[in-house]
């Protein structure tokens, strides 16, 4: 509906109508207050214009009830804005489970995306309409931000952190994406296009242009051997470090008794800062890989560990918390 008005960008994701509705609500409240104040000021300005040079105003006394009213009414409206905004935000920050995951790396001044089958794109992102898409964001250098106005979502891409964002495209088409966190000289050129396709077109596109690309899990398996991870993380659990079979998505029991979900951010941290979270029952043996792996290599290793999710967990020699462990 609003997409026809020039003051709105196109609505092309599940979040776009929600954000626009919030915008309309808050605009409505604010226009009301701004108009009321402006009309009052303009009215008083003319109505009480001083006619005699020595005239003074009529004293009006402070009224606590009036003060209370104009504190409480705006507070109630502000809380409505807060609550509604929070609902949308919590939805945005809680990614659904059935997402199609795309890895996105920002670097000065380009974006590299990697589809689940390993297909790589530069300053382009192809996604199917109607699927929940999760972008896993990493930066090679400074802070960037992945922003798609037509989807009404953005997320900073922070070096040393994994951030994720999700959306569900609702309308096929081509939409601008921008870097919206200032990142140096060519910040303004660090953008591109999101292409939202019908699922069948998307599959055809994936298979049609996948020549030469390596499945990230395969690349990760190779790295796992090259970097000698395999020496300690023995699959059958007999090595000095826990087996990684089935660990992705599971709860891992740590030395301090707490548990953590083995997802992208945890795996990344364990590779780069192995001593940050020690698995219960294992000595802190692992060397750091900080500065030795590119973001894409970390993606590949993560993809490989993810592919081990379906492998049988050995009888002993793993880090997964027993089911009775606390959440």
């Amino acid at each position: 509906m609003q997409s026809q008005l020039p003051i709105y960008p196109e609505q092309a994701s599940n979040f776009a109508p929600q954000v626009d509705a919030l915008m309309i609500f808050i605009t409505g409240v604010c226009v009301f207050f701004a108009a009321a104040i402006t009309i009052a000021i303009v009215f008083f300005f003319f109505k009480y214009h001083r006619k005699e040079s020595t005239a003074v105003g009529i004293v009006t006394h402070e009224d606590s009830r009036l003060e209370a009213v104009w504190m409480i009414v705006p507070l109630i409206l502000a809380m409505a804005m807060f609550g509604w905004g929070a609902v949308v935000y919590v939805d945005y920050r809680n990614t659904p489970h059935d997402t199609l995951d795309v890895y996105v790396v920002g670097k000065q001044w380009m974006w590299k995306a990697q589809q689940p089958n390993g297909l790589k794109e530069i300053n382009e992102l192809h996604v199917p309409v109607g699927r929940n898409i999760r972008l896993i964001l990493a930066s090679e250098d400074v802070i960037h931000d992945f922003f798609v106005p037509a989807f009404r979502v953005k997320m900073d891409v922070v070096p040393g952190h994994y951030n994720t964002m999700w959306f569900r495209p609702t309308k096929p088409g081509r939409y601008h994406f921008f870097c919206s966190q200032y990142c140096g000289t060519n910040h303004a050129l660090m953008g591109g296009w999101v292409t939202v396709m019908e699922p069948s077109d998307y599959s055809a596109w994936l298979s049609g242009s996948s020549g030469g690309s390596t499945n990230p899990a395969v690349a990760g398996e190779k790295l796992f051997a090259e970097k000698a991870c395999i020496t300690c993380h023995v699959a059958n659990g007999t090595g000095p470090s826990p087996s990684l079979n089935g660990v992705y998505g599971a709860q891992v029991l740590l030395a301090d008794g707490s548990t953590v979900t083995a997802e992208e951010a945890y795996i990344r941290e364990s590779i780069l800062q192995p001593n940050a979270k020690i698995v219960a029952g294992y000595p802190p043996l692992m060397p750091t890989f900080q500065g030795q792996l590119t973001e894409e290599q970390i993606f590949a290793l993560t993809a490989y560990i993810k592919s081990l999710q379906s492998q049988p967990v050995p009888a002993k020699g793993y880090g997964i918390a027993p089911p009775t462990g606390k959440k």
Partner: protein
Amino acid sequence: MSNTPLTPDLELPDEHYLNATYGSGIRSWLLTTDHKRIALLYLASVTVFFFIGGVLATMIRIHLLTPGGALVTPETYNKLFTMHGVAMIFFFLIPSIPAVFGNFLIPLMIGAKDLAFPKINLLSWYIYLIGGGFVLYSFSTGGLDTGWTFYTPLSSVYSNSAVTPAVIGIFINGFSSILTGLNFIVTIHTMRAPGMTWFRLPLFAWAHYATSLVMILGTPVVAITLLLAGLERMFHLGFFNPALGGDPILFQHLFWFYSHPAVYIMILPAMGVVSEIIPTFARKPIFGYSFIAGSSIAIAVIGFLVWAHHMFVTGESTYAALTFSFLSYLVAIPSAVKVFNWTSTLYKGSISWDPPMVYALGFIGLFVIGGLTGLFLACLGLDIHIHDTYFVVAHFHYIMVGGAVMGYVGGLHFWWPKITGRLYPKSLSQFAAIILFVGFNLTFFPQFILGYLGMPRRYHTYPPEFQVLNVLSTAGASILALGYLLPMSYLIWSMRYGKVAGPNPWPATGLEWKTDSPPLTENFHVTPEVTWEPYDFQNRPDLGLAAGARPLAPAHGDD
């Protein structure tokens, strides 16, 4: 001047702080400890930085006339907006009202001879100059391209510009702020004239008290944060760079812990100015004095607890985001209270259309838009779309230029007769106020729409669909520039040719109006005693108004 009481032809006092007996040579200015002269030193120096920032802004707006960028290279564009921000925020907006009007007026308003620590006051100006010198050195040797926010690791590792002298300059300049804040707090606590109780203090003094708290508590944090970024840059110590084990998000927390309250350093004093102007030109006590005074303190306190609302899309925890959004909505309430009370003060007033009033009402109009658009940005769900777009640029310019600068220019018009002893052309200044208001809105309102359409900030080039709104904005900026050049011209003209104002031309109720214009070096001939309530026109026969029915007394008459 038909709206102000008729007064006989006035003459400047024989002796005042500008021509005082200890001489008027350059030495007597550079070594002065007179708060009024120091205020004028600040006035001159912040004007220089305002001019530098203004020229940079003009170049930015010309560059953005065409989608491809009309004027400069990307590197230069990035330097333009960075240096514009640094010059305007750290060296114009933060010192502007406190260091100029606060310095000039706080002792006069509370009936003191000077600030509590006059030499420290002069020291703070020299510190400002040294800090400013470092920053100008950075600007002229390679420039600065990090954005005024200095986000790491861009500033600490990747930038090729002169970051180090700039952060040293801002670090040094911080002490100037801290010392000024300290001086104000001690002065307001200890040097009030007999009868000047806390609840007889002008609201301008309350606003500066709140501002000073923020200056003292917040400035050390940003100073140390920028120093850490500088150390990381110079010596590769890993504070914020993840490759060295640091965390770039930590920088943002520390930076905004000061830099959000810094917005209140800019806007609270402007609110104080407006709280003086409105009752004066409505000729009645301000409505809800204690609520306006209390709201200044509330803004200063809650303002310290909202910083991470700049970080909703950095990946901060959802619970942190919820907390900071909630607190950001709370801080909106005391600002709303001020606006409602100012508006109510007009009710049944005797409203003159003198220039300061036109500026003050313009302030309210722009501040209302700036404040209300803050509600959009505090809204978590909406911020994921409008964060880091032109919506934010428009919002903070409405607060910092529409609000703080409008308040500053309004204050200049209100106290100019006190500072110089002379009046300026009335119609011309009313016209300038309207030009400023119209030019400002035309410049920045289109940017809200640009932001919602998705134009990110700090872009030297943009897709063609954004051009129309950018052209509108540039057109507005040229009107706005006229709105600043006009007052600059006629105020300078008036210093020599303006009509002599007399001690209390409006008239106003504050103590600063009960002495000569310009005042003596010692401010008052006799220590004043306060026996009236603030902004009371009814029981002040000395003002020569209808209720009092006594001609306007010269300041060193019988008071």
